[in-house]
């Protein structure tokens, strides 16, 4: 199913300035694997080599936070939006 992935300002440079991409995925883990295939530079900014989400980055589906570890198995449904959100430091 088609999932929208929203890219935060901080990571748009890794994907040519794009703010949203679409991937075919049934879980959060699937979506990340699709990003690894289609947008490897972005993926490396989101996940460590082990596949774990980097510790300064959070993911949420629609408006629900994805828990670290087991949260990657969260099921996705058509029309869901997966948002990648790093902490921002400016101020």
């Amino acid at each position, binding site marked *: 199913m088609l999932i929208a992935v929203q890219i935060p300002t901080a990571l748009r440079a890794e994907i040519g300035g794009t703010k949203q991409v679409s991937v075919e995925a049934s879980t959060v883990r699937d979506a990340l694997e699709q990003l690894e295939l289609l947008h490897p530079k972005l993926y490396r900014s989101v996940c460590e080599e082990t596949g774990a989400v980097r510790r*300064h980055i959070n993911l949420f589906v629609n408006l629900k936070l994805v828990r670290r570890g087991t949260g990657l198995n969260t099921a996705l449904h058509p029309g869901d939006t997966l948002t990648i*959100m*790093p902490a921002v430091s*400016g101020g």
Partner: protein
Amino acid sequence: MSSPDSFDRYVRQMQFAPLGREGQERIAQARIFLCGCGALGTVLANTLVRAGVGFLRIVDRDFIEPNNLQRQVLFDEDDIAASLPKAIAAANKLRKINSQVVIEAEVADVDPTNIESYAADVDLILDGTDNFETRFLINDLALKSKRPWVYGGCLGAEGQSLTIIPEETPCLRCLIAEPPPPGESPTCDTAGILSPIINVIASIQACEALKILSGKTEAISRQWTIINLWDNSVRQIDVSGLRESVDCPACDRGEFPWLNGERASQSAVLCGRNAVQVSPPRDAASPQLDLAMLEAKLSPLGDVARNPFLLRADISPYTLTVFADGRAIISGTDEISTAKTVYAKYVGT
């Protein structure tokens, strides 16, 4: 304590029913530590001094540059001409805005050796910083001393805020397990920063502060607020239950590595500045630097200007801004090692 008449200026605020006169009286007694007085910090200070807090301690390590004026609302061109540190310029302006507020300004780098003294006598800590190291330090201190604090951060047209009440709400480390490694996170230099998002995020922080200080903590946001003014998105992420569901080293185990100095650095590359701050190890007993003597030493090498707070020397290809506490900001390099060399060469150790 303020006399009843002194509350006239807050009449519109007191007419707001959830606050009322009782809330205003509590705000007038409240003491705040504002850590950092740049973009977020100037909006926070401006808003809370106008709102009539009792006491505001502003601590900032930096001086004002022309590219700050786009978003740092308390500063003007005269402050730049006078080479004023941000804390001093902000305090000067704030005292004209509201003479009822006791304002204390410190030109200093907040670090593990001094943060406890800055926060010891306050009710609330506000985040006006531009880096994760200081934010994680604030988080450690806030949790250890059980003081509330309000996180804010901005980049581009995007900003975030989280209100943290120790032992009640998730803390910064519950949400962000680790700060990004150096060089991995974009800065105001690479991604830019728009002034409106600063005003929005700092205003949210300021309103959270008013809720806490007036005793209305039941009204605080229990969500992680993320706003992007360019993409027209406002997101409120539910973080209730996060504190119970993550194994947070700070909340659950009382581990405070930023506060105990394990995670402290002595030098830091400054956000978007092509500059490095060098901080020599020192403690409360260390003497202030003799800036006049340093001026005499550096004058043969380049243009040197000095005021009571700092000295600036243009020694090509670097500009050294040396503060009386011994810190220096070395402009013209992003390399910590180069900056330390320049410091050792011209300021000495």
